[in-house]
């Protein structure tokens, strides 16, 4: 029966491409890392799962209606689209004609023509895949990363930072990883290895900020085509912090430096904790409006946490809301793991540059801490400089652990939380500069 044949010809097995198979294996690898190795599972699990869904052949869950029409390339529909666009499908292959159409679509600036094409596509029975819908509603608009930032703000305690504000410099220094990586990406392009634009280079650099939602937010604005690879790199390397950082930290410090005991943090009053997020907001408003969405939501979350009068909102931001958004964000980001977008030389470049960014950020933080230790009377253990890359609270724990190796009575955790949360502010500021410069 021809119907059984149709079933077979529509099956995944019949249509599975090698690239899709590779992507599915890659995504299974992400799931393995998330589940067995506990690599940032809250995001890598939904990302990996959605990555598999995005590569289910024929389902087109991560494609827009237009992309699906292009994929199936039904002759009649495509001829109608070509007529509307005023081009002739003169190529001998579907791939050639597809290129002609995509080219013509890019050149269209009359919204009436775009509406007509959409209408033709829709009439032919194509509609946006559900993962694509999540992506366009939640990530392309920036809403999901902002909501995550709200929740992260509500989970963040700035107490250690307020007790020792100088640690903000460590959070600043560690952002050098971001900008050095931008230069690296640009350099690789100059060498002809890959081909990154400045916007793409900036989005790759932000991986060095060690801050998932910031990386997603920036790359959704400056390089949406790289979002999948950048998000995967950011979360994977954040999980690798306990492996990547210690050798660098040990190489740059002496045993004696690592054993430095820091003076105990003073208690911080509630009033200071309430005013701090407002002070950050004020500075952002005055000096870097481009960072105001990210840092605004972060500060709102923190104000809700500290003010003590909206506990039910703070609880919701830390639990129900951030969890719901995390599920959708993971699915949306995973939808960008489509084989065509991910399996490129650029992805390898991103992975390589991302780890370099982490390493440079760590080193910069440590070196800055050593400099501050020289200049200041109050002792600073250089290990806490490494926590300036953010990756809250993993990097602070790493600093604590490496410190305990040198001096088993020296608990650095609280001291490292200062630069750790400073790093979040620092990378959001860096993100703002990039968006303003390139956006």
């Amino acid at each position, binding site marked *: 029966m021809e119907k059984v044949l149709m079933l077979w010809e529509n099956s995944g097995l019949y249509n599975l491409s090698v690239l899709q198979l590779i992507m599915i294996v890659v995504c299974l690898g992400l799931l393995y890392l998330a589940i067995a190795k506990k690599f940032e599972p809250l995001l890598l699990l939904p990302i990996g799962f959605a990555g598999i869904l995005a590569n289910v052949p024929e389902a087109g869950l991560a494609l827009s209606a237009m992309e699906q029409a292009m994929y199936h390339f039904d002759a009649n529909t495509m001829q109608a689209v070509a007529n509307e666009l005023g081009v002739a499908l003169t190529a001998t292959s579907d791939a050639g004609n597809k290129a002609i159409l995509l080219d013509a679509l890019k050149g269209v600036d009359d919204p009436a023509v775009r509406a007509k094409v959409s209408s033709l596509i829709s009439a032919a029975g194509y509609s946006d895949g559900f993962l694509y819908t999540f992506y366009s509603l939640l990530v392309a608009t920036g809403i999901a990363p902002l909501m995550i930032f709200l929740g992260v703000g509500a989970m963040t305690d700035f107490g250690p930072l307020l007790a020792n504000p100088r640690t903000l410099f460590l959070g*600043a220094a560690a952002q050098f990883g971001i900008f050095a990586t931008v230069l690296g*990406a640009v350099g690789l392009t100059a060498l002809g290895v890959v081909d990154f634009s400045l916007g793409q280079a900036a989005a790759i650099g932000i991986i060095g900020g060690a801050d998932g939602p910031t990386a997603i937010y920036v790359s959704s604005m400056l390089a949406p085509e790289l979002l999948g690879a950048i998000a995967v790199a950011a979360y994977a390397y954040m999980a690798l912090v306990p492996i990547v950082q210690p050798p660098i930290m040990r190489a740059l410090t002496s045993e004696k430096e690592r054993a430095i005991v820091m003076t105990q943090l003073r208690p911080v*009053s*509630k009033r200071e904790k309430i005013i701090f997020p407002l002070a950050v907001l004020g500075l952002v408003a005055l000096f870097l409006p481009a960072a105001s969405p990210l840092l605004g939501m972060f500060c709102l979350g923190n104000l809700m946490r500290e003010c003590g009068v909206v*506990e039910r909102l703070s609880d919701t931001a830390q639990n129900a809301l951030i969890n719901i958004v995390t599920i959708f964000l993971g699915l949306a980001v995973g939808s960008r793991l489509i084989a065509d977008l991910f399996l490129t030389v650029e992805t390898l470049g991103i992975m390589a540059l991302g780890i370099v960014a982490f390493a440079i950020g760590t080193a910069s933080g440590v070196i800055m801490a050593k400099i501050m230790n020289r200049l200041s009377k109050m002792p600073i253990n250089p290990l806490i400089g490494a926590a300036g890359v953010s990756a809250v609270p993993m990097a602070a724990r790493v600093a604590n652990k490496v410190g305990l190796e040198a001096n088993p009575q020296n608990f650095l955790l609280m001291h490292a939380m200062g630069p750790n949360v400073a790093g979040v502010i620092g990378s959001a500021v860096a993100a703002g*500069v990039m968006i303003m410069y390139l956006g």
Partner: protein
Amino acid sequence: MQDTELLREGFNLMLLGMGFVFVFLTLLVIATTLMSLIIQRFFKPAETAATNLPGKSGSAATADGQQANIVAAITAAIQQHRKRR
């Protein structure tokens, strides 16, 4: 964009970006230090709050607190009981 141009732009971005990050966080250090000084001088230190671990949600804290309360209640009850014996 030509390669040298791109490289120069990247370099500019690095200078500008790191410069701005440092300027911004320096301002924040100054603002924070001033704010703390003013508050410590002009307001009573009565309402100091313990420095909590970040990432610990309010509800979790409440749950822990509740459990701690229970343990305390049991302990107190038992001790009181012992004394009376």
